[in-house]
């Protein structure tokens, strides 16, 4: 199918949605605006600077269709996936739709509200109207526009002022198609009130080998002096495409962190953008990806220092094997007003094969004059001296390589505050090492 035909198909799907599941008032208008934007922008091509190294023709030329209902998907099938258990509540979404029968929502701490977006849109739209589409702007972002146009379900996490949530909230998005290439568009909105604290983990998982597109958008509003730790774990199917857009607006003296861990998927594009909108805010954007075969992993980050005295830390690490490729683009904007900014960015890639490649680009736009901004990028191979040292201590070459790859990647996991997430990811990482030892 050509790109034009595919885009025409989305127009029909959109008209169908507006007819069958209309949203009232300004939310309906938001969808209209968003679709109009998508229609005008079209899928991005490599002529656009931020897509220069990421060819999404396989996405643009496929006619993805709305997911069908999967009533037949059982709790046993869900359990069999062996997803990380984090000990807190689990909200499960199947093909973009909330699946109460798969979810474990008992023991939600007092004050905390986690609901499906579908329910909120039906019963309590005023809660989300001030936020939806306001944090994740779509005027220049076709995928976010497409997600917003098809706004229907997802997760809404509300943490009222002063509430500290101890256990992580686990949002699980499963794509399980029934044959045709499926388009899933999960939407997450996290509203953390002043001085609240919460940890949100999103797991995006594909169960089948068929191609699908998971186009996810997450909006996070971090109130003054609040702390929000967000984790995205990408475990998509091997032929799957993922485009994720995480956008956060961070208030005064608040702390926001995001860790994006990409473990599978054919083409994965993770965008993370944070606006530090109050003085004294702090933001951490970290990422880790493992790529092999012909996988493409693209991480795009933007940190906008809009106000003075904010700190940002950024560390992205990747391990590439086979003919995989990766892109990292880290943009840091320091506005005229944002004096005393301290921004650090680092991007490190470990290449295990001669055919793997990485493109890395820091992009600093600094308008204030009293700031500290540093960036660094390294691309390297396993150190031969380290390999020899380990082998001279009786470890096989394979073991030695795995120990060094693990050390490289686990360094990033060390930054993860939630113990259960860190341990689960480390065990996934250890499982993957034999496939990633570059031999």
């Amino acid at each position, binding site marked *: 199918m050509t790109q034009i035909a595919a885009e025409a198909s989305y127009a029909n799907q959109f008209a169908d949605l507006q007819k069958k599941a209309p949203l009232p008032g300004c939310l309906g208008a938001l969808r209209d605006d968003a679709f109009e934007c998508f229609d005008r922008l079209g899928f991005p091509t490599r002529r656009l600077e931020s897509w220069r190294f990421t060819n999404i023709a396989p996405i643009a030329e496929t006619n993805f269709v709305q997911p069908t209902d999967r009533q037949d998907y059982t709790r046993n099938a869900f359990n069999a996936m062996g997803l990380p258990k984090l000990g807190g509540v689990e909200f499960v979404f199947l093909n973009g739709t909330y699946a109460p029968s798969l979810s474990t929502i008992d023991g939600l701490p007092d004050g905390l509200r986690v609901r499906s977006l579908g329910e909120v849109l039906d019963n309590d739209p005023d809660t989300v109207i001030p936020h939806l589409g306001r944090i994740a702007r779509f005027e220049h972002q076709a995928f976010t526009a497409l997600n917003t146009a098809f706004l229907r379900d997802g997760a809404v996490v509300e943490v009222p002022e002063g509430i500290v949530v101890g256990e992580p909230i686990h949002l699980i998005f499963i794509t399980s198609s029934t044959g045709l290439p499926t388009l899933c568009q999960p939407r997450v909105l996290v509203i953390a009130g002043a001085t609240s604290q919460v940890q949100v983990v999103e797991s995006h998982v594909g169960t089948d080998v068929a191609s699908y597109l998971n186009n996810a958008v997450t909006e996070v509003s971090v109130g003054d002096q609040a702390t929000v730790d967000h984790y995205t774990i990408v475990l998509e199917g091997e032929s799957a495409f993922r485009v994720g857009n995480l956008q956060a607006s961070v208030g005064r003296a608040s702390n926001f962190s995001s860790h994006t861990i990409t473990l599978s998927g054919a083409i994965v594009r993770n965008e993370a953008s944070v606006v530090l909108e109050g003085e004294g805010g702090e933001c951490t954007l970290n990422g880790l990806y493992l790529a092999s075969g012909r996988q493409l992993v693209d991480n795009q980050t933007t940190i906008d220092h809009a106000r003075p005295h904010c700190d940002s830390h950024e560390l992205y690490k990747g391990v590439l094997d086979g003919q995989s490729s990766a892109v990292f683009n880290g943009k840091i904007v320091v506005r005229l007003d944002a004096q005393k900014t301290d921004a650090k960015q680092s991007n490190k890639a470990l290449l295990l094969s001669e055919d793997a490649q990485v493109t890395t680009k820091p992009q600093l736009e600094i308008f204030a004059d009293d700031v500290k901004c540093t960036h660094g990028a390294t691309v390297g191979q396993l150190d031969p001296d380290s390999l*020899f040292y380990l*082998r001279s*201590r*009786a470890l096989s070459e394979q073991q030695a390589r795995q120990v060094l790859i693990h*050390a490289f990647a686990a360094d990033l996991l060390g930054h993860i505050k939630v113990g259960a997430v860190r341990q689960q990811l480390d065990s996934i990482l250890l499982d993957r090492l034999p496939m990633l030892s570059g031999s």
Partner: protein
Amino acid sequence: MLNIRDLQASAGSRQILKGINLTVNPGEVHAIMGPNGSGKSTLAGVLAGRDGFKVTGGTVDFRGQDLLDLEPEQRAREGLFLAFQYPVEIPGVNNAYLLKAALNEVRKYRGEPELDAMDFMAVARERMKLLEMDDAFLNRPVNDGFSGGEKKRNEIFQLAVLEPSLAVLDETDSGLDIDALKIVATGVNALRNSDRAIVVVTHYQRLLNYIVPDFVHVLSGGRIVKSGGKELALELEDKGYSWLEPTPVAAEA
């Protein structure tokens, strides 16, 4: 145990070892001394299987096996241990983790049961006392941020845990102050026994005051030019190396 015959090796286009002959029996301590550039570290590297050297002639028999035919890890499992002149820093790899993995590889090879974490810690703690190291060492990344002396002590600690049949100490004394030197030497001496051989490669006689060798060999220009007892080391200390040089120093540089 170790039988080196006419060993020749080059690095790039440069011939460094030009026919080494050396026999080491169980229980013996041999010192190999020589000026800079004489081939001491090349010999240690060739024995351990380091990349970058090409063996161009000769044989090395280690406990009945052709050593040069073995991968570095096979040499280690067979009981060869090299204490590095420049121990490698490996951030992110825990000292205890590496040592436990190494010990269990050796034990597996010997047909002994692997040690679990508790048993390993018991062994490690006991050996750490030998080197006057404290527990914190175990939880630090391998050599990362260690001082020169700590790195060398860590090498001897690994030696103590792995209990090889042949230990090659490559310039273990370099960069050590006198107190650290004594600790390292005490550790090595405690590991001397009738089954284990030790080859001490050093530039200076100083270490040999504390680790007293049975034999001293002088390596110069890629050959062993003189062998003798421990008194040879004192003679070298007294006279320097120049009286033994087959060619003038300037030509070697």
